[in-house]
């Protein structure tokens, strides 16, 4: 069940109302677990068994790690919890490449990727590592299931820590009027981002150019890269708006995942603003254990590089993501050198020129690296890159509709952050009936100007 659908807007308030009617904590947790399973089963009922197996394994593993406190046990548990993801996501890719070296090696068929596996596997790993670091293991399997299963974040994050949600499950709080207003504001934002920006850009500009780059001029390919950059932001941050808004309808607060990433003035800053919960995860469970910025010489650069590589490969088993991770690793390392040892170490506060070149360089690095993110393989990425060099003088052939969405989308992205907070606050102050009217009008706008039906979220493939 996709978020921006009529079915979800029937499902969500029904589940929320029943949740608030139930007074007993255990019942509420049970209700959320059952409805989350229903939500997940709507994609593929068979995948639910794997999800339940991971939940059972991580719950049991948490108890075991708490008892033993053994690094060996933790290591085995982590490997075990990551093994389904390794099997479904990476085995075929690894075997296919090893076969180039060892021709006799059999290559298993490409497995169907269970939706959300990269997200719930990382959350399960974070939980057992946190337990090893001293956090108490959850005794109640239903409550633990609620943490991993809670449907707003189940399929594509934000990546939660157990402590974030379990603590909120413990409190006997109920949803407030402000929560409902905030939730509807975020759900509406998600609708606009997904259906009126991301999907329009995808259908109107991006897909056609990436499918047949040779049929477009260099200018059109560049516009498509800008469009894809905005599309993926609106697609994923729109998903996050839905997740945060949906959770708030239950009175839960889950962390933000984006902070106007394209306003970043360095690639390192970009990663602090893009998919924040994943960046936090790799920082806490990869970068710090590797040594972080401690140690002299090249160690911090190695750690940064490896972390960004893992971050890239997390997105998929494809050489494009390997190169994507390497590129970003290089950029963040270069940024570190600039700040620590290079010309940037004596830098004064930025003037307008300093701000402009940093912004343009960072933004275009991110935009051009997206070629790898969107391409089917390295060959395709090369074709798209070559298409950029075409100099045919012709006006772009994209529809006015899509072009307008592109311009307005970027304009909104570069507005001050306070504007959104102010607008949300004003919206929360409206009568509840006005919220409903706004939601209905938005739904009609999406039907009228959107693609007719929501397309799958990009991060569902990861």
């Amino acid at each position, binding site marked *: 069940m996709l978020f921006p659908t009529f079915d979800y807007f029937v499902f969500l308030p029904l589940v929320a109302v029943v949740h608030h009617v139930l007074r007993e904590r255990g019942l509420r947790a049970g209700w959320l677990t059952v409805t989350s399973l229903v939500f997940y089963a709507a994609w593929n009922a068979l995948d639910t068994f794997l999800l339940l197996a991971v939940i059972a394994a991580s719950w049991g593993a948490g108890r075991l790690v708490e008892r033993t406190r053994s690094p060996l046990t933790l290591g085995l548990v982590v490997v075990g919890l990551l093994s389904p993801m390794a099997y479904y996501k990476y085995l075929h890719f690894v075997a296919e490449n090893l076969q180039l070296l060892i021709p006799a090696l059999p290559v298993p068929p490409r497995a169907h990727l269970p939706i959300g596996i990269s997200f719930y596997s990382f959350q399960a790993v974070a939980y057992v590592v946190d337990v090893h670091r001293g956090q108490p293991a959850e005794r109640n399997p239903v409550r633990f299931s609620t943490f991993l299963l809670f449907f707003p974040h189940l399929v594509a994050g934000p990546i939660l820590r157990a402590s974030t949600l379990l603590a909120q499950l413990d*409190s006997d709080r109920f949803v407030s*009027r402000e929560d409902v207003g905030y939730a509807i504001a975020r759900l509406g934002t998600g609708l606009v981002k997904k259906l009126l920006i991301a999907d329009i850009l995808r259908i109107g500009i991006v897909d056609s150019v990436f*499918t047949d780059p040779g049929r477009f001029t260099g200018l059109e390919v560049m516009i498509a890269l800008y469009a894809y950059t905005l599309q993926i932001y609106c697609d994923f941050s729109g998903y996050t708006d839905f997740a945060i808004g949906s959770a708030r309808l239950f009175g839960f607060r889950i962390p933000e995942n984006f902070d106007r990433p394209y306003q970043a003035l360095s690639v390192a800053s970009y990663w*602090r603003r893009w998919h924040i919960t994943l960046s936090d995860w790799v920082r806490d469970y990869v970068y710090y254990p590797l040594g972080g910025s401690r140690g002299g010489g090249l160690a911090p650069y190695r750690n940064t590089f490896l972390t960004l590589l893992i971050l890239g490969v997390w997105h998929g088993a494809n050489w494009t993501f390997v190169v994507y991770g390497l590129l970003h690793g290089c950029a963040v390392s270069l940024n570190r050198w600039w700040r620590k040892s290079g010309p940037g170490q004596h830098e004064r506060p930025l003037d307008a020129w300093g701000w402009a070149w940093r912004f343009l360089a960072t933004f275009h690095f991110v935009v051009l690296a997206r070629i790898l993110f969107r391409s089917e393989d390295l060959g395709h990425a090369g074709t798209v890159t070559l298409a950029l060099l075409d100099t045919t003088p*012709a006006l772009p052939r994209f529809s006015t509709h899509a072009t307008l969405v592109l311009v307005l989308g970027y304009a909104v992205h570069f507005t001050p952050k306070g504007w959104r907070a102010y607008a949300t606050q004003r919206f929360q102050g409206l009568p509840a009936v006005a919220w*409903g009217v706004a939601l209905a009008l938005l739904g009609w706008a999406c039907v009228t100007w959107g693609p007719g039906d929501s397309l799958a979220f990009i991060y569902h493939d990861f």
Partner: protein
Amino acid sequence: MTSDAAPPPSRAVGGMPALFLAFGTAGLLVAATALVPSLAHLTPWHPGEPVPVWRALAPQATARVTEDASGELVRAPETPEPTAAPVAPVPLPSDAAVPTTQRPPGVPTALADPGFRGMDAFYRALARAEAGQGLARASQWGDSTIAADGITGTVRSRLQARFGNGGPGYLSAGLDPQWSMRLDVAVSRKGEWATQSLLNGGGNARYGFGGIVSTAAPEATVSFYAPKQDDGTRLKLHRLEVWYQTGPERGTWWAATSGRGAGGGSAASTGTSDRFHVVERPDGYTSASIGAGAEGAATFYGVVMETAGPGVVWDALGVVGVGTGSFSQTGRRHIAGQVAQRKLDLTVLMIGGNELGLPSLLRGEADEYAILYARTLAKLRAGAPEAGCLVVTPLDQGTRSGGTARSKPGLAAAIAAQRQVAADWGCAFWDAQAAMGGPDSIVRWAAMKPPLGWSDLLHLSEKGQDIVGQLLADAIEAGYDAWTRQGGTTRPTPAAPAAPAEADPADPAEAGEPG
């Protein structure tokens, strides 16, 4: 990097009434759309349809990943099989030849051409070319499907590989990615050019053979370079035609082949008229340039670049966005004169994809559209009544609604209308939607990896166009082979019915000098 949000303090009850009020209001407004006929398109659910939420849990008809016929892993159809009433299959005449080559996921589809009455003239030209004599000329008009020159490019390559390369054929002077493309021909443009097309109008009822008319500012030029061959050299061409317009306030024009002057003169006249300048180059040329002199502007329709033969020429005359209404903008005598000059052996028409929203088609009624389509066909055939005729239907097009994607509702009626017109007018008929696999095939094509269709569910990718082009070429070749096996017998062409009267707008082309 930010840390996880801290749990908020406990709060008093207060949100439930707001939750009820907000979602209740939204629900009532959405339900109200079902009561207002003009808002019915906004209703997300109608009684009788699967129940929301429950329908999301219904088992999917197919796995999400499957293998195609060639063993490639592809994403399976997003939607269950269509439930719409199936389109009646085209009855194939006894002498139709069904191609045997498999091109998954396309379906081998024969031309419906009883007695070869639609294709006979073209098959005779092909037979002459195969015997080493002359050119077989076909021109395919269409919309963005043809403007991309994917389908036509493949048909051209296939037929030229077998019957010989007759050259790139007709090229609009305004050939530009904005309007139409030819990937085999390099184009270099200098100076200011103003272009009008059938789509945007402004051409004073004279849009030329390709639906595009371009005016060059003083000293503006455009050069066309012959297609490259396998050995890297450019194809040697022997005939150049310059199609231009004379009229008031025009200057001079000129033409050159491979840098050598090939004619020119004044483009000024008191009335507007069409002119054709023909140059033979027995020693061959590989590029042609046309342009306006320094004295004033010159208006061009295009150029024809051909070899001495034998071979096939397959013109791609696509203009993005056009339909039958667009062709009504061009003057009857003007287009007849243009077509007559081209000396066609086959007229091919592939439009309709931009007209599927016509109310009559949405109601499933074919008659009204059949009249519009017949007018267009009649207009194009008037200049070459002896040429063969082939009607190609629009490709499958889809739309997303209610959680599913499927073929546009007007498509079946449009295809039925075109099938009827083809039968009435003695044209051969090729069902491109059937060749793609029938209704909803665009959904499957777009979901494949690599995609055979764009996610707009309107256009095919380059690979998808190539498959359709191969299927059409298969059908033409199979038809030709069947025609040859029967001794190349020419059947009498039945008299075409009178074209439905068209309320032609004031047609300045009629008032001008004879072109």
